[in-house]
């Protein structure tokens, strides 16, 4: 217990207790009564003293009670506070996790986010009178919900406004933001309106982190400004039972495009084995049901050894829906019929388009590999040499501003003639702004690639060895898919409704020493190359004609092509909200408010590209078990489970005690009167 105003106790005690004692002795100036003899009285008093050792105390019991009343009242005036670990903080930063795992509904029926907000509001209640606080909500990005404020009601309103998302949680940005804000506290100048410059000796801020401990990057959080002992982590998580879909894929049968195959990977994150039904819906129609049994997330540890439990092998299962006859386009949805803690990952969506034949233009001076592989695909292929391509009339290549081909593949040919469409370059680059091919790189290895990218689906890049490739200069928005040591080897660039898939290497190089074309890589001799070409053509030719269109993660931006001369686009979100966006003059729309999982639909949109799906597919968020400690940087901060203790004003109880003491005194006094 501590006191907000300890001086008040001293003043009150000094002002009241000595007079009380004095009054008590004045009050005990006993009435004098004459008696015939004090003989027996003295004996009786002595007897009582002998028999009752507390007689002396009893004599001054009233004084004692009144002193207790005064002391209690004096302490109450000192504004005593119980559990005041949070008081007297000058600067408080409240971080609230709003990631997907915070949507877990705990046993009391409230979500983790609601619990975190309640705890945060308690934290605000605990603020000292002169303390200021700021509120930052974080998921995959950090948002300043409230900058520094001393108005508790306003702070609590801001905390209430934090909304759940389905994004992943990253703490680094939030911490950086908080550190930046604490460095720039303007304490206020000596004169009115004069601000002090950022003060490096500003009081150290206390950080209150309300999370369930499921933070992806917590180990990479670098603390510069905050002392670790000033960081308090409150864990609002309790439940750990969850089953979630961590991946989902829909694919048309290669030979029979009207037949659809849907596969979903399901993982059990809970402590108990589960049997779960997965239901397949296409455009809301129930199509199929499969049942899968999943073991508990971790193997049971028999002995009490400190060894951490090993993940169970059969905690994951793949649900496959085969031979689904579906020739049209629509939304494919897999739903797990289970009542678990987190419902966000119980559903997954993908968008499938109706099968169509792809028109492909191969511009090459002669490439055996490409010609043979592309001709084996079920596509309509047109062959041109680079010279023919450059000479070809506009009508042959484009319809309006758009290319007449679904995919144009350039083999060792860089060109400026690029009507809007989908292009793939082998050993060349589109001559557009920001893209350039530099020197030839040799003797480097390929060491990194994005294996989750649909272009690399079922492709083992480990087998890819290339003798030389061009050093690519790419604009920042380009996405590197395969990396060399110093530059990107395969990259994807989307610009102005066109897509460019650029491979820095060609399959064949002209070797002057050998006097003819040489093989640059043996990749074309592997199955992986065939799959990669197939993926590339399908990806570029409409993204999802044959494959379920790649879904995006919550929070990721999406580029939507929109019809010409569209002034306004409405986006129908899965939470029922329809957003109206101005699109005058644009041909594509960048949309980033994808915080919730589900299907989003643009209206009006290009047919087949107007719907996209947002899925969680995040094992970090799906693993909802409470973390006992949060590792920040290199150190571990113990996560305090339970609730923030609130500064409860204790004076009520003390005044209540004072009343009780007075009552007891009154009773005793009256008993004595009526003996």
């Amino acid at each position, binding site marked *: 217990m501590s006191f907000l105003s300890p001086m008040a106790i001293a003043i009150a005690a000094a002002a009241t207790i000595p007079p009380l004692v004095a009054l008590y002795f004045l009050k005990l100036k006993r009435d004098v009564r004459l008696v015939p003899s004090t003989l027996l009285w003295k004996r009786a008093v002595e*007897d009582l003293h002998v028999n009752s050792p507390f007689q002396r105390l009893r004599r001054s019991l009233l004084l004692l009670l009144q002193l207790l009343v005064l002391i209690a009242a004096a302490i109450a005036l000192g504004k005593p506070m119980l559990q005041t670990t949070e008081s007297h903080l000058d600067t408080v930063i409240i971080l609230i996790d709003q990631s997907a795992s915070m949507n877990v509904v705990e046993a009391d029926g409230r979500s983790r986010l609601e619990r975190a907000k309640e705890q945060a509001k308690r934290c605000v209640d605990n603020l000292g009178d002169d303390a200021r606080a700021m509120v930052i909500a974080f998921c995959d990005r950090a948002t300043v919900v409230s900058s520094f404020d001393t108005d508790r009601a306003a702070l609590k309103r801001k905390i209430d406004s934090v909304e759940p998302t389905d994004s992943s949680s990253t703490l680094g940005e939030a911490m950086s933001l908080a550190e930046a804000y604490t460095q720039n506290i303007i304490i206020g100048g000596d004169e009115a309106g004069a601000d002090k410059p950022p003060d490096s000796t500003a009081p150290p801020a206390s950080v209150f982190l309300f999370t369930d401990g499921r933070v992806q990057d917590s180990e990479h959080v670098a603390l510069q400004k905050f002392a670790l002992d000033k960081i308090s982590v409150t864990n609002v998580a309790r439940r750990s039972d969850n089953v979630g879909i961590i991946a989902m894929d829909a694919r048309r049968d290669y030979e029979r495009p009207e037949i659809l195959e849907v596969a979903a990977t399901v993982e059990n994150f809970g402590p108990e084995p589960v049997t779960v039904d997965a239901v397949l819906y296409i455009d809301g129609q129930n199509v199929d049901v499969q049942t899968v049994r999943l073991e508990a997330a971790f193997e049971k540890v028999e002995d009490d050894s400190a060894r951490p439990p090993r993940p169970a092998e059969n905690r994951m299962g793949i649900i496959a829906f085969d031979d689904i006859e579906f020739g049209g386009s629509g939304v494919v949805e897999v739903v797990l019929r289970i009542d678990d803690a987190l419902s966000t990952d119980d559903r997954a969506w993908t968008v499938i388009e109706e099968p169509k034949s792809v028109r492909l233009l191969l511009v090459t001076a002669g490439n055996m590999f490409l010609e043979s592989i592309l001709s084996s695909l079920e596509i309509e292929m047109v062959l041109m040499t680079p010279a023919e391509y450059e000479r070809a009339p506009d009508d042959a290549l484009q319809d309006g501003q758009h290319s007449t081909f679904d995919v144009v593949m350039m083999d060792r040919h860089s060109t400026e003639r690029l009507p809007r469409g989908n292009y793939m370059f082998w050993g060349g680059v589109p001559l557009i702004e920001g893209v350039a091919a530099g020197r030839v790189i040799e003797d480097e290895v390929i060491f990194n690639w994005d294996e989750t990218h649909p272009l690399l689906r079922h492709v083992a890049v480990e087998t890819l060895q290339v003798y030389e490739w061009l050093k690519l200069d790419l604009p920042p928005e380009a996405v590197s898919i395969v990396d060399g040591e110093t530059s990107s080897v395969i990259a994807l660039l989307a610009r102005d409704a066109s897509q460019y898939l650029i491979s820095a290497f060609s399959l064949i190089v002209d070797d002057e020493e050998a006097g003819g074309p040489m093989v640059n890589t043996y990749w074309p001799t592997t199955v992986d190359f065939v799959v990669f070409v197939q993926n590339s053509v399908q990806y570029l030719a409409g993204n999802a004609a044959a494959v379920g269109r790649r879904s995006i993660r919550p929070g990721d931006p999406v580029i939507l092509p929109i019809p010409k001369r569209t002034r306004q686009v409405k986006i129908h979100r899965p939470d029922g909200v329809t957003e109206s966006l101005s699109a005058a003059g644009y041909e594509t729309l960048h949309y980033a408010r994808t915080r919730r999982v589900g299907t989003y639909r643009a209206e009006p949109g290009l047919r087949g590209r107007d719907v996209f799906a947002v899925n969680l597919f995040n094992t970090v968020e799906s693993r909802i078990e409470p973390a006992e400690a949060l590792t920040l940087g290199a150190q571990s901060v113990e996560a305090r489970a339970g609730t923030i203790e609130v500064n409860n004003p204790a004076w009520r109880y003390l005044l209540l005690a004072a009343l009780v003491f007075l009552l007891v005194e009154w009773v005793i006094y009256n008993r004595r009167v009526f003996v």
Partner: protein
Amino acid sequence: MIMAAKRDSQLLDPEFMAKLDQLSLVSRKIFASKLRGERLSKRRGDSAEFADYRNYVVGDDLRYLDWNIYARLERLFIKLFQQEEDLHVSLLVDVSKSMDWGDPNKGLYTRRIAAAIAYIGLVNFDRVSVYAYSNGLQYELVGVRGRRLMFKVIEFLNKVEYGGPSNLAAAGKQFAIRHPQQGIVLLLSDFFEKDGYEEGLRYLLARKYDVYTVQVLSPEEIDPPLVGDLRLMDVEDDDTAEVTVSRALLNRYKRNLEAYCGGLREYCTRRGINYFFTSSEVPFDQVVLSYFRNRGLLK
């Protein structure tokens, strides 16, 4: 506050005195006295009541020769008669300050008893002495005899002033020295003696008096009507006792009072002293007419 009784209160009313006319004092002992009285003595004397014969010796009073015997036996015998003696009745009345207390007043109560006993004694030609003592004997009225002197006793008892501490030891000693004649001693007091009542009673026992003790307490002493934080002041010696009167203290007081009175009674009984306890609330005529008669002091 308990008021002292009015000084001129009537000690005895004529109706009650008429009742007392029928009574006389009884001593369990037969005492020798200088004056001949109305009581038979162990000594042979010259009353009309025959006691015995004895042989004549020269010098005997010839008037007591039994001539009839001489005529029959020709021997000289002297007739011996019972000697009648008067009875000394001494009343020791406590007039210390503490006796002027209570409602009804203890002092008036004891003076009334003293007056009644004195009256009975005077009616029966007993020699009545009244002593008032506090710290030693203060007032005395010695050797009054005969009914007509009753006014002297009343006057004496109305005259006494209450004051000073009670000192039975001093009073007993003085009384024993001044009053060698054996007889009935009636001691009227509250017996609240700070130095103890034993020494005083021993002086009386040493003279072989037929001692009667009457302990008179007021209702306020038996059941004190006190409450609160009080400074109790002894009326006799200004001694104070600070008490916080509680139920426990009152119970303790009552137990102590009981024990004190019980101790006095036991002390008296063991030594052949007749002990009466009475509250000043009990009508004093009842004490005299029935209580004393039952206990054998009066017949």
